[in-house]
């Protein structure tokens, strides 16, 4: 059974279509790259799956259910911004996640924090941008979720942090879960992707296995992306 299914999913803002007639099905055990230039509808798509937006038409199903409290218990979401309460310490954030998510593994999170030398007693707002992003990723990836939605997880961080983020995603790979990574920094994530979705102006241009693209096009996903989205 597909973890995520979208049927004719559309989202309009007034007369502007941010997403139009998206049909998708994502199976467990896949790492999927949601790729497209700025404004292609990546964040809108992720927000719709999370229930942060209501579709104008069509539907999105997570393990057969529409977005709601039950589906939110299955989805681990990393937005493209600081989303944690800045007055809380890292330790308090850990307890918050443990309180609300049954699938949160606090020990795993503590272990990753210790590996990075992040002091759990520090307040979130006193951390550097890179460290804040690492803490957020650690919290999200310490859940044993069925679907991980990572919106621009490597945007705006230094190469070392990028490596850590991708390493964390691979280390926490779970064959029963699917991971969707939204980004336009394709060369950095290409090695971890099983499938690729190209979004252009709110429509799915391509949904294919990464290996298949490399075989049929004879080039990397990154190069193929540059060809397709050439300005």
């Amino acid at each position, binding site marked *: 059974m597909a973890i995520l299914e979208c049927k004719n999913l559309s989202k309009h*803002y*007034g007369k502007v279509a941010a997403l139009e007639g998206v049909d998708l099905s994502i199976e467990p055990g896949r790492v999927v790259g949601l790729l497209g230039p700025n404004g292609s509808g990546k964040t809108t798509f992720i*927000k719709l799956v*999370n*229930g*942060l*937006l*209501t579709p104008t038409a069509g539907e999105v199903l997570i393990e057969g259910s529409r977005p*709601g*409290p*039950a589906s*939110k*218990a299955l*989805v681990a*979401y990393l*937005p493209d*911004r*600081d*989303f*944690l*309460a800045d*007055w809380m310490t890292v330790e308090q954030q850990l307890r*918050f996640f443990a*309180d*609300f*998510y049954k699938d949160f593994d606090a020990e795993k999170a503590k272990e990753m924090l210790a590996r990075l030398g992040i002091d759990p007693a520090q307040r979130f707002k006193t951390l550097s941008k890179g460290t804040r992003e690492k803490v957020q990723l650690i919290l999200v990836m310490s859940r044993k979720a069925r679907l991980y939605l990572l919106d621009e997880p490597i945007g705006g961080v230094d190469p070392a942090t990028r490596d850590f983020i991708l390493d964390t995603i691979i280390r926490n790979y779970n064959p029963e879960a699917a991971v969707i990574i939204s980004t336009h920094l394709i060369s950095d994530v290409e090695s971890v992707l099983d499938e690729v979705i190209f979004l252009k102006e709110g429509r799915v241009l391509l949904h294919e296995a990464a290996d298949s693209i490399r075989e049929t096009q004879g080039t990397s996903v990154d190069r193929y992306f540059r060809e397709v989205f050439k300005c």
Partner: protein
Amino acid sequence: MLGKLIKYEFRATGRVMLPALGVLTVLVLLANLSVRLLDSRLSSFLTVLLVLVLIATFVAVVAAELMPIIIMIVRFHKNLLANEGYLMHTLPASVHSLVWAKLIVSLVWLLATNLVIVLLGGLSVMHLAQMNLAQLLAGFPSLEELRRMLASVGLNMGDFYLVLAELALIIILSGLVSCLHFYAAMALGHTFTRRKGLMSVLCFVGISFAFSLITNLLGIQEVEYLNTVTVVTVRGGLNVLHGTMGKSFFYLLAQGALLYAATVFGLQKKLNLA
């Protein structure tokens, strides 16, 4: 889930509200001391200082009244309509739980602030009148005395408790409606794609105008009705009071239901986080 949300809501708001109430208490105690000292002969410097303490206390009391409202607005915006909303709206909790957690905690702080102000006011009165607590309490009738007083006009303690319960319900409901007034305005204002702050203010003004118009119309009707009522006995007067309080209760309930529905609609159907 609601219990957990309330716990974190108290934590987030308590870190501001508790110190604020603490400062208010200290200032009122200092003001009481200042009043006592002002009676004696002091240097002009100390007199100015004590007067400043009195002014600061007055300002603190006004600020304390506003504090729970400001905290309520900032918290709702920051936690549900700004970046933290990306976490809160993706928790496995319903929008109803998110709204009720905020409502309950805001109501508690509104009531607690007013209770502290009343208690500190009582303390100040006691101090100014140079009374102790026993003397102050002696001014109130005992339960037995109250029972006799009520019996002398054909009422009983049940009537007394019923009026108290009705008053308590109306106070709680008024508090909830006040909170929902802000919540609905913000939730609706944020459904717009641009100038969400300004649109929230306009929604607040619009809702206030509509409700005050309805309240005035219903108020005029009620006064006209009361003018036609002839009260002969205390029991008759009490029944009229029950009727008016009942109508107020249902009017507040209708207001609350409308504002709650608008808040949930804004957060559930039209959520549009920046």
